[in-house]
């Protein structure tokens, strides 16, 4: 019961606002596909158009080889969860799960009460909520409610799961367990799933692949590790990490076969391989943006010889076992994330060092990343 989804040149307008502008995507059979983007990026519009709740203005949607544009929502065999579980508060778990089998839109089949009973029990058993069937939603924990909502989706045996920020409103404490459960259920059933979230950690931890979307356009598609390690441009690089990547405008200088990144506030050597590659890309225009993630910026309380950059400590955030430093190098703000055991509390002046193996290079004008 799964299918691949292909979207070609999809557009959606709300009056004059372009919610989706020319989206091309291929989602594989059984894949857990995450659509990641800030609010207003077009995530919910995309889900609605795929579900058929709203029509597209241009472009094609295929499930397998079948063109879906003209097919109404209830015949698409997709199951959608929106942000709240939307369980019927006055119905028992059993009746909640049985509802789609009795509903007015269940036109393709008529089920006898015995059949309904069998189907509901089958999925309740699978989700391990058989003992809860008589209860009302208000008597369930958050996790149990999620499983009931899943159950209600599953009884129809959909080809596609569409989940629009399903755990965004949940208690932060439970989210890691919810994510684990959702992912495990999806794995086991192997249903093609599109999952939207504004939370990059959720996307990185759940997606088989991620599409980064903003302003109705897809910026990058890839495996979580690929997007994290090789972001396509500065915007994606910053969006994909919890603390935005540090980006510093520099120019390249070559001296005695060594490569230097130079800025009014520092002059550091670049690893030779990267430097020579960068130099061959940049040619005469020697300007570029240097990117480094906060966890690749190390801090020393005394000056170390090479590549040390003096910095003033502005703010230190202590988050559990790690500390996040907001530092100023001249008027540039640089973030650094380090283990909290390493540092005394009230330091004002430090020396920072960028990890040479974790540097990113971007085009100064287009902000696109150089493949180095």
């Amino acid at each position, binding site marked *: 019961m799964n299918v691949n989804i292909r979207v070609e040149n999809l557009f959606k307008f709300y009056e004059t606002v372009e919610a989706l502008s020319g989206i091309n995507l291929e989602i594989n059979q059984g894949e857990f596909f995450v659509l990641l983007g800030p*609010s207003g990026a077009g995530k919910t519009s995309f889900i609605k158009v795929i579900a058929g709740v709203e029509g597209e203005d241009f472009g094609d949607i295929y499930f397998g080889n079948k063109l879906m544009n003209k097919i109404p929502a209830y015949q698409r065999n997709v199951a959608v969860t929106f942000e709240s579980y939307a369980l019927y508060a006055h119905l028992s778990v059993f009746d909640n799960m049985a509802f789609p089998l009795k509903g007015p839109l269940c036109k393709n089949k008529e089920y006898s009460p015995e059949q309904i009973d069998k189907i509901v029990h089958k999925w309740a058993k699978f989700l391990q909520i058989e003992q809860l069937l008589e209860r009302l939603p208000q008597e369930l924990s958050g996790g149990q409610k999620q499983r009931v909502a899943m159950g209600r989706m599953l009884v129809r045996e959909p080809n596609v799961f569409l989940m629009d920020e399903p755990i965004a409103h949940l208690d932060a404490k439970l989210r890691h367990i919810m994510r684990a459960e959702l992912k495990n259920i999806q794995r086991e059933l192997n249903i093609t799933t599109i999952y939207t979230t504004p939370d990059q950690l959720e996307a990185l931890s759940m997606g088989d692949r991620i599409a980064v979307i903003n302003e109705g356009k897809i910026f990058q598609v890839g495996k979580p590790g690929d997007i994290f390690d090789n972001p396509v441009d500065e915007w994606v690089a910053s969006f994909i*990490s919890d603390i935005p990547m540090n980006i510093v405008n520099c120019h390249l200088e070559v001296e005695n076969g060594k490569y230097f990144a130079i800025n009014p506030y520092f002059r550091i050597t670049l690893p030779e391989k990267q430097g020579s590659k960068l130099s061959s890309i940049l040619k005469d225009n020697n300007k570029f943006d240097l990117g480094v993630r906060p966890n690749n910026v190390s801090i020393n309380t005394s000056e170390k010889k090479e590549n040390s950059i003096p910095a003033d400590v502005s*703010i230190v955030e202590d988050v559990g076992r790690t500390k996040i430093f907001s530092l100023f190098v001249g008027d540039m703000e640089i973030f650094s994330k380090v283990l909290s055991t390493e540092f005394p509390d009230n330091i004002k002046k430090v020396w920072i060092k960028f990890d040479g193996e974790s540097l990113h290079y971007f085009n100064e004008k287009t902000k696109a990343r150089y493949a180095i």
Partner: protein
Amino acid sequence: MSRVKLENVWKIYKTRKKDVVGVKNLNLDIKDGQFVAILGPSGCGKSSTLRMLAGLEEITKGKIWVGEKIVNEIIPQDRNIAMVFENYALYTHKTVYENIAFPLILRGISSNEIKKQVYWVAEILKIVDILSESTSKLSGGQRQRVSIGRALVRNPEVLLMDEPISHLEAKLRTHMRAELTRLQRKFNRTTVYVTHDQHEAITMADKIAVMNFAELQQYDTPSNLFNRPFNEFVAGFIGEPPMNMFDCNLEKELNDFYLVSKNFKFKIPDKIKIEIKKEQILSREMKLGIRPQDMMIKKQKKNDRNISGEMFHWEVRGDEGIAVVKVDKNMIAAKTLPNFNFSKNEEIQIDFDLDKINIFNKSTTKNICVSDKEFISLAERGGSQ
């Protein structure tokens, strides 16, 4: 100067059927220039506390001091306290300049003086270039800065903020957090900040008052709250994922104390001082609390403190991973490295940093571990104890 002190403060809401306690016997001492967050789930009494401070709500019992004065009977506008609200409450038909100048105009200050004050605030907030814009054109972050500007221009003794950034988008929130902290340090005004978001409180505040069910649970520095939570509620509320709990018994052998369960047995290290009261001798049932950050997952059992479990799920999120492990019927979270290598349903052993454990009495839910340093701050915690 502008030390804020709450002494046995109660807020009781009278309804037709019964009295509802909003704030129960709260004691807080906020030093001059300190940034204090009041943190708790919705309905814990944090906003009631803030509103009593502002004078928007009557104090049922107790005293509130601002500086040398008791402010119970002083009306809001005379308290010299400024408040920033979640929804900014800006005048949308006025420009940024007019919004910031408004409190000064009401006081009948000369327009030259007003101009000076507004520019002084606008420069610090970096909004000089938008002073003539209408507020309806501004982004969320800019609006919040304007509303803070309006609060600061009066030069208040105390600044109160009620969830000022909780509705902003995640990225902007990160940015505003750092900015608010920096501003507070610069203005150096005593600040009370209400939030339900532990991350905000931990990263911004000098001290945090954790509240639940109208009562103060702990008033402490962020790192003390993290390392030595006073009770199970605080342990679960601070930290993400929350602290993992394991049922066990406290046993005494000779002069040493041991924690024992069917999963593990180990001696409590000498470094950790435990405080045992009479009632706890009767009940030896404890909960061992371990932070996900202090756990290590191993393949082989190495010693008696290792806890065996079954891998349920593992997720990597950029530069770190979180493993969800089934121990008996509970789900346990452990932080791992991003290159962690275990498969689902694999039998594993959980090891942990012995010096970082906490032990909670199962019946009172209180932490029985106390270190010398914390005996001193015990007095400060006061309140509900």
